[in-house]
């Protein structure tokens, strides 16, 4: 499933990131790459971005980018 479909407060594990190389590289340096666990913190108003937390790093990405990140639910970390 896509990251954009995840509700706020859920923790998921990233399976793959399907965007351009430069963008994928930037996301990797922010701890968003295959195998990492991220938590969706909140969504911005005005149908805006979502804020993620990945191993201590908080970042904001757009919905269009979140649709390119494939994730799967980890067990038991629902809040």
């Amino acid at each position, binding site marked *: 499933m896509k990251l954009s479909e995840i509700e706020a407060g859920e923790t998921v594990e990233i399976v793959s990131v399907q965007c351009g190389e430069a963008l994928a590289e930037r996301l990797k*340096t922010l701890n968003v790459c295959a195998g990492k666990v991220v938590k969706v913190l909140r969504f911005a108003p005005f149908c805006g971005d979502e804020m993620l*937390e990945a191993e*201590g790093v908080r970042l904001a990405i757009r919905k269009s*980018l979140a649709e390119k990140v494939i994730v799967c639910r980890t067990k038991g970390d629902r809040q």
Partner: protein
Amino acid sequence: MKILLVGNPNSGKSTLFNALTGGHARTGNWHGVTVGMQSRYADLCGLRAEICDLPGIYSLRSYSMEEAVSRGAIRGGEYDFVACIADALTLARSLSLIEDVLRITRRAALVVTMSDALQKRGGYLNTDALASRLGIPVISVDARSKKDIVRLRTFLAKASREKPSCLSVSADFGAGLLSGIYHAGKARESAFERLLCDPRFALPLFVVIMLAVFFLAFGAHMPGTLLKDGCETLIADRVGGSLALAAERAGGEVAAAFLRSLFSSVGMLLSFLPQIAILYFALYMLEESGIMSALAFMTDGIFARVGLTGRAAFSVCMGFGCTAAAILTTRGLENKQLQKRVILILAYVSCSAKMPVYLAMLSAFFTNSFLALLAIYFTGVLFSLAAAFALKGLIPGGEEFVLEIARPQFPCLRLVLKSLLFSLKQFIIKIATVVMAFLILMWVLLSFSFSFDYVGTGSESSMMAFFCRGLRYLFYPMGITRWQVALAAVSGLIAKESVAGMLSLFYGAELSSAMSVPSAVAFILFIMTCSPCVSAIAATAREVGWKRAAVYAAAQTLSAFLISYTAYALLRAGALAATALSVLLLAAGLIRILIGFIRHEKIHCAERADTQRLHRRKLSAGIVCFFSPSARKRSAGKRCKDRRKCTLACGRRGDVFHDAKGGEPPVL
């Protein structure tokens, strides 16, 4: 000895740079403050070293434009030593950059900042163990503490003199490197951080802060205005008046007039210092606190609608201080097309230098200047959003947005005050040199005729009147017939403060005699939308080249004229005309949005009849859109192409429908 400061964005490089060298590099608690390389000499316990502050990079594969600067500097090899700066709270993330740097050179050391925050969170770091694992010296400091800076100086002096360790330390840069010697502490968001990113709290908070700052600076009976009046009385009346009186008594009538004019203009300009100080203080507090990235996150939704990203929020906020500085921050934007759009719209964000003009005009024509000023600033932001929307089609370009959210922290007052004093010093120097020189030159040209007879300031037979005779025709449609006002407006190209200076030179306090109220509003709109001063144009040229910078300045000035003509015409024609035009504009705006939507569906063509109707509407929308004449031309060309393409495609479909004799497959 040249030392490079390399590290992730927002890790404290510029703070360390300022502390070590006594410099004034811009600092702020968000990712992307430093956009260019800065060098300064520092004294490291007897060793004189040149320290270079670079923009932050995440790795040596650059993503944004300013990161390419750092990558070039590191790979270029023109340095003696590299100081890697890492944030203690995200040390694991910085390892990839340290690894990349160590592959290029082993003459390096690691400086871990924010050690105080790490301790507060319950984390720890064993610097000696890390040093032996990495093979380079490591130190942990708090960049804002004076004691730690002294320790850092000694550390850098020693490390840069040492020979790099020859042991080929095959450091395992994987997860194992930090195990056992580092713990990041509790990584959970504090309640305040959560609150700050909650839109229901943070956006109203930001609005309240802005309103409070404006009120403090500009409200009647508030410290801002009281100090301003005090300053003005002191400089213009007491000092200037007494000097002028002395000159008169000595018989120099011309000298007396000169002194009186000069001191009243300069006094008026310098009297804005308290209000500008309040504005800059608020701006720096905001930057240092870390609210900016939260703001960018929350406003990205709005900016995305007009084709920008949340990073533009940084530039817009900076634009309230100085447009030239804001243009320099655009280097941190995602790509060139975005940067061009933001540079173009920054002209509409009212910088602090326009403030004296607004206040001078408002106090002469309106009773409640505080509300009017608020309206002007707000309208400026709305204009810039509208201009960004209009430019979306003109300069198309990708808008990816990935931003690391900085940790909010209470700003270090010492650093904020240091930056504030530096900005105020710059303002005073600018007034005391550029603007004063310009005003003196103007006074001479305005008070003497070609035969060098003194004819009185602003007289019709002065040299400047001769040069400016043609200029005022540009301002006739605004209802401004005096060449003096036209000259004042044009002098805004040198420095926006000189507009206020020139107006006071000519009219002193009786500005209301120079023009009517509708003209005053048109004039204010002109100043608000005109091209910024030469320093901003020079900053633009540095980013996009001189030719483009000149084109932008011309386009902005042209749009400024058109907007002020329209405003004047509306105000003269009365409320009915205003309502009619607003309705027309709204309709045009809606149609533009509709067309954007329909063009998207163009390939999956609607019925032929619908398409033709919409193309006719496109034509009318194009006429009303007057943000820039070139936009009109471009859409006309595009319209032709679109029409041809669509009619062709739809024609084929139509043919198929009409000639369908059964059996033939449709050609699309």
